[in-house]
């Protein structure tokens, strides 16, 4: 087995800040030093300055696919693996591949390259980080669909911030550098509104600082966070939030669902697999008495904090019934309990 390849992520906060350009600059520098670099995947977006930066670099031809009657192109993973370069340039880390043609996500393709000992340079925007999904939605109104679990980025050997001020970015859009002119005006009003860009930029800067710090300090695990998972839609937000707090505190994170029967319904199943994707250890306990099972589980698993979602509003005819949150709070006054906000706009 060869040594695992190293991963370098160029992190930005919007299309057009220059991530791909910086990545290609590095590829060119490597190439000039005689290192074997190929382009595994590159998204030109019709940007001339960026396209010019690919000159002289070997490109592994993309794979052409048909899906739902339309033509698509993806990175040809098998071809890049067969070519075995020292470095592969793979643009757009958060991309979802066309269904049914291998890995679901491009970051999984990248992992296959790393496993084969190939070093990878890649790009992504901060809003594609799973743990920021709700916050980004709350701040910008945009629900990002293509996400990357945080641990994937945490495992990168290097995360480099590609910064550009929102004003400079908006100027580039106005000049038609980023999008075709007919799309530029609409882009400036929506996603590229100055407040959105400024907020996303702050996320990107803070996240890079977090990655730098993470590599500086060896974790000492004293916190254990337990997420109480249900089938309610807000569980996704709860899972992301609990995991984010656990990660920032360098703590462990586990999740439990109390199921009335032996089979969990589909929504619960989805949340459980979502939690597992984020590398949260999940447990299902069969039983009726939700609050005392949660409190008991927390005690036996030496949990330091219980994370719960807000209880659903009570119907008028049942206004004085205790909610699950109230019951857990009353049962576990000796423990730290966090009731997580529901992100709204």
């Amino acid at each position: 087995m060869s040594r695992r390849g190293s991963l370098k992520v160029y992190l930005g906060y919007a299309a057009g800040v220059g991530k791909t350009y910086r990545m290609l600059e590095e590829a060119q520098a490597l190439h000039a030093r005689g290192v074997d670099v190929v382009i595994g995947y590159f998204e030109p977006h019709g940007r001339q300055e960026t396209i010019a930066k690919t000159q002289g670099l070997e490109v592994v031809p993309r794979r052409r696919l048909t899906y739902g009657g339309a033509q698509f192109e993806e990175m040809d993973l098998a071809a890049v693996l067969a070519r075995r370069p020292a470095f592969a340039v793979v643009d757009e880390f958060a991309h979802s591949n066309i269904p049914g043609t291998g890995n679901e996500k491009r970051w999984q393709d990248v992992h296959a390259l790393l496993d084969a000992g190939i070093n990878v340079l890649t790009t992504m925007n901060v809003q594609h980080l799973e743990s920021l999904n709700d916050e980004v939605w709350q701040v910008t109104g945009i629900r990002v669909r293509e996400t990357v679990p945080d641990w994937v980025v945490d495992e990168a050997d290097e995360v480099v911030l590609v910064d550009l001020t929102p004003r400079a970015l908006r100027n580039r859009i106005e000049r038609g550098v980023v999008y075709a002119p007919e799309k530029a005006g609409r882009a400036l009003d929506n996603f590229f509104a100055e407040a959105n860009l400024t907020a996303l930029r702050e996320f990107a800067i803070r996240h890079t600082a977090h990655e730098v710090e993470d590599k500086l300090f060896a974790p000492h695990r004293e916190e254990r966070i337990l997420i109480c998972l249900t089938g309610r839609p807000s569980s996704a937000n709860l899972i992301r939030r609990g995991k984010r707090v656990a990660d920032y505190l360098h703590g462990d994170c586990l999740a439990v669902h109390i199921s009335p029967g032996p089979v969990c319904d589909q929504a619960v199943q989805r949340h459980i697999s979502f939690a597992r994707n984020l590398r949260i250890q999940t447990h299902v306990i069969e039983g009726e008495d939700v609050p005392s099972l949660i409190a008991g589980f927390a005690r036996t698993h030496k949990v330091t904090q219980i994370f719960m979602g807000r209880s659903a509003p009570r119907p008028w005819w049942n206004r004085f019934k205790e909610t699950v949150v109230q019951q857990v709070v009353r049962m576990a006054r000796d423990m730290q309990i966090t009731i997580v906000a529901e992100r709204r706009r």
Partner: protein
Amino acid sequence: MKARPDPDQLLRRVQAEEQRERRGRLKVFLGYAPRVGKSLRMFDEGRRRKERGQDVVVAAVQEKSSDAVREIVGRLENIATVAGAIDLPAIFRRRPEVCLIDELAFDNPAGSAHPYRWQDVEAILKQGIAVISAINVQHIREQQDAVEAITGKRAARSIPQKFLREAEEIEVVDAPPDVSNGDGRSLAELRELALLLAADVVDYQLQQYLDSNGVAAHWGTQERILVCLTPRSNAADMLQSGQRNARRFHGALLVAYVAQTGLNAADQERLDANLALAHDLGAEVHRLPPGNFADALLAFAREQRITQLFLGHSQRDRSPVERLIDLAEDFDVRLFPHGQVG
């Protein structure tokens, strides 16, 4: 919701904006160590602006610049410095649109118009000329203690952080540390420091932008933790956890208590001890006026854009704490066990 601003306030805002419009724009490239490429990025921006038709001149270059920087500078118009200081009269006569000024932290020789280069920059901006400049985090005065703790060295020249914060734009020049250039760990710590400084400046700009556009936002991109102390809270645990969370999230820590009339002597003593602990930790302590506990906290938390509220568990059912949990839709509530007191 935020109240509508009064007319005087509006007038002041308009005047301030007009003044800003007449002033040149300042853009600063911020790096974390020498040789990360700030100067190159700055001069390269000058070159590109010139290609787009702007009137750009170079007003100060570092003596020991890289070949790449020299090459760009050689292709631009230069206004030579006088004994190292920017030649202000020459710039005012020439009146370019944009001045490129390297090494923002620079002490002028005796007899210059201003002791420090950043004051020269201020004068140029006042003339309606834009300035692009570059600086390292070790030259920001308020960061110098932190830098010294990392590197054991303190740069002689510095600029006030406020000058950087008031810049229209700052751009981070980031790169992984080049270990051949020194101690990797120190460089990584400096890098983190520069990133956090930049994030704070960006956060400040975001708030300014939202305020000046009349947007009242309850959310933020930064974690803001509010620890609520009562006579019975286990203040030591709550404050310690609050501090740890604020540090790890690079967020803010606030402490508040709701003033209560008619506290018995023992409770008053406990509250005072808890508040003293908060003061000792250097936390910002807010006194909320007496009244309904849950309402007062809720209003304060929203006004301060709190993302996490730390509270003690209630001792009884149907308490204000339960009501607060019911009402606090837009921030997390973390309940802490009480101490052994009482």
